[in-house]
């Protein structure tokens, strides 16, 4: 069809020629950019003048691989998708997997691929394993482009209904997956310290992950339900942490007594911030909340007398078992955790206890959020997210509704902050920088706004992964960024995004096909 319409104009381009032309240009460009920068590497050996080593093979590989990828990508535009699929898949398998193993220095493969010893020849194109990984990811994109073009070709032009049906199906899958994954994750989280893998390091990492899960669930109230983009969430986390620090150091209150106070003070801050800014919407609100987060941090740095300034506050009371301390040598006549339960003393007890405390706190957050969603206030939050003007016409007070969302979100951040302070035994402004807010927001968005299980998964991925990959050192943040980009590419609405109505007429067994059937 397109040939006919094009025949009137200049000669229709042949796909192969077109793609080859493009690839040749790409090759020239890659060569120009890479031959000096990649081809020569300076090195300074002790006692010798600066010299260089050549890496021509890397240049050649780059000059071959990048245009090849472009060539395949261009072909997909002319409906020649098979080469892209095959080439992409081969490139991905060949480059990515050995590359990752090389980066991780897995010994078995290290011998086989010899990525560790640069002097021995190996089957991988690039010397640095990480470069292979990056090219592998590139190959993956070629593969993805091919697959997407193929799907488009088989489905044809997607009508609105087809797309809606696909979305509904995906939401249903997410929903079913969540109902299985949710309890499973909780069960695994509860028993993991008793499994052989539950060593101190893993539990420590999990405590961190759970803290972010809790923060994510708290922020979900503000961002996911009420639709208020809050970029300063970490401020409330800081308020909670410093509240507990001050209560513990100055007044000698223990964690359990401080927890409600910290939550209440954080909520008060939520209202105090909320009141002047809730007239703002969208981007403007985001900017102001971002500013608020920074204000809190700068106050913490500069109010030396009260907050200890940049040095922070130390010697915060560690957590106790509801009044019974975790101490090796309790005072005369007092109990300690291990004597109470007749155990041998171990510092791990406290860590495990912390772990269960954060799980309990996070589950409380989750439970309250789920309950609130079904309350009138929860529906009003969601309605406000959908259309504020319509809410006003229905007599819903937008200010109060937003303030409650802000206050509740802040309260949970305050709880999490107290927990953070008692775990660390030390707080300083450094822990509450903007990047923390960004990470928490990323967890909510990547998890799928409003999806509790999705938020948990995203926290595991974004917090757990960099911790597990600590060996990767430098590449850790690269992987972090890569994971974020991948999630957004593959699941733009978040890992698990779906919405279950808070009240149903036809019950859960209602037939989904009504979407198409009911409309006439």
């Amino acid at each position, binding site marked *: 069809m397109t040939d006919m319409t094009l025949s009137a104009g200049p000669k229709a381009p042949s796909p192969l020629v077109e793609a080859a032309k493009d690839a040749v240009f790409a090759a020239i460009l890659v060569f120009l950019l890479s031959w000096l920068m990649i081809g020569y590497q300076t090195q300074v050996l002790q006692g010798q003048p600066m010299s260089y080593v050549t890496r021509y093979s890397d240049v050649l590989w780059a000059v071959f691989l990048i245009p090849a990828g472009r060539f395949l990508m261009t072909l997909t535009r002319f409906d020649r998708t098979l080469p892209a699929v095959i080439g992409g898949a081969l490139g991905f398998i060949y480059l990515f997997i050995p590359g990752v193993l090389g980066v991780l220095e897995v010994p078995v493969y290290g011998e086989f691929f010899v990525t560790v010893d640069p002097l021995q020849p190996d089957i991988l194109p690039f010397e640095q394993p990480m470069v292979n990984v990056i090219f592998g990811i590139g190959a993956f994109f070629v593969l993805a482009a091919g697959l997407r073009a193929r799907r488009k070709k088989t489905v044809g032009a997607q009508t609105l209904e087809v797309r809606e049906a696909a979305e509904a199906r995906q939401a249903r899958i997410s929903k079913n997956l969540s109902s299985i994954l949710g309890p499973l994750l909780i069960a695994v989280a509860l028993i993991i310290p008793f499994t052989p893998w539950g060593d101190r390091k893993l539990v420590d990492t999990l405590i961190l992950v759970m803290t972010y899960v809790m923060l994510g669930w708290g922020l979900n109230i503000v961002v996911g339900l009420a639709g208020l983009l809050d970029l300063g969430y970490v401020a409330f986390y800081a308020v909670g942490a410093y509240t507990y620090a001050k209560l513990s150091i100055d007044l000698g209150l223990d964690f359990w007594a401080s927890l409600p106070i910290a939550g209440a003070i954080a909520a008060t801050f939520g209202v105090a911030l909320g009141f002047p800014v809730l007239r703002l919407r969208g981007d403007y609100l985001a900017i102001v909340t971002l500013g608020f987060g920074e204000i809190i941090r700068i106050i913490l740095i500069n109010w030396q007398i009260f907050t200890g300034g940049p040095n922070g506050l130390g010697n915060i009371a560690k957590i106790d078992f509801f009044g019974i301390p975790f101490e090796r040598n309790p005072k005369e006549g007092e109990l300690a955790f291990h004597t109470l339960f007749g155990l041998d003393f171990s510092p791990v007890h406290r860590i495990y206890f912390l772990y269960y405390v954060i799980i309990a706190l996070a589950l409380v957050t989750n439970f*309250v959020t789920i309950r609130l969603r079904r*309350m009138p206030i929860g*529906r*009003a939050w969601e309605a406000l997210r959908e259309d504020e003007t319509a809410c006003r*016409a229905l007599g819903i007070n937008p200010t109060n509704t937003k303030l*409650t969302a802000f206050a509740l979100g802040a309260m949970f951040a305050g709880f999490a902050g107290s927990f953070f302070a008692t775990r660390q035994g030390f707080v300083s402004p450094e822990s509450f920088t903007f990047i923390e807010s960004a990470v928490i927001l990323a967890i909510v968005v990547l998890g799928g706004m409003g999806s509790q299980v999705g938020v948990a998964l995203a926290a595991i991925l974004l917090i757990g992964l960099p911790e597990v990959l600590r060996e990767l050192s430098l590449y850790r943040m690269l992987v972090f960024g890569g994971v974020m980009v991948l999630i957004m590419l593959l699941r733009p609405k978040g890992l698990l995004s779906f919405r279950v*109505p808070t009240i149903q*007429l036809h019950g859960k067994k209602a037939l989904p096909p009504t979407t198409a059937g009911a409309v006439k």
Partner: protein
Amino acid sequence: MSAPMNAPAIATGDTLLEVERLTMRFGGLVAINDVSFSAKKRQITGVIGPNGAGKTTLFNCITGFYKPTVGRIALQAEGRDPFLLERMDGFRIGQRAKVARTFQNIRLFPGMSVLENLMVAQHNKLMHASGWTVLGLLGLPSFRHAEAAAKEMAVRWLERVKLTRVADEPAGSLPYGDQRRLEIARAMCTEPVLLCLDEPAAGLNPKESGELNALLLSIRDEFGIGLLLIEHDMSVVMGISDHIVVLDYGSKIADGTPAEIRNDPAVIRAYLGEEDTE
């Protein structure tokens, strides 16, 4: 409420809404110029006029989206305190004075289900019943009863506007005509004393608009509330209005029964243009 002595509507005692000398200026533009009219309960009052006549601005003043520059808007419902709407915050007009409205470009909560849309409309009632969420979180029976009653009312409205089958679907996925009816049902779920409809028949086919007429008439007769209606579709306005107010360039040019309006020379001029001979 001190009504002028010569206002005939007050004397009859069933005036619901009294708009007096309403003026709305945006900078130098006078969108509404000294408009007075009244709307009675158990009546459908149509507001018509060419494009840009100030109809929607009038609605926005009545429903609190704009604060009028000059003028008074008084609402007096049977057995309720009188309200001066021009002094009230936007959302309180819906909350306290019980004035509900629909929008020219439909404003549903598209991601929420049809039933949820109707539940949100009963927010204030449910909020009270849930003890501002505290009692609701504890799951007290009084809240559960209130919620069940709210659901029942929503279901009644769903049946009335024939949307029961799609109750659990997202409101945004409904076809246009269904969305229009849902918006009216949602407004009615706030149990208003005055329902303001901004072009409810826009984009409906003749069959749908006939059904809409029947719905509006049944609302008028059954609930005894006042309806205020902006409409372009003359078959709707002339067919169901008990009383019509005509605006042109922000001023009221006529006020009367449909028959009177149809023969009013000023109205004909506004719609068809002036004759050359004059």
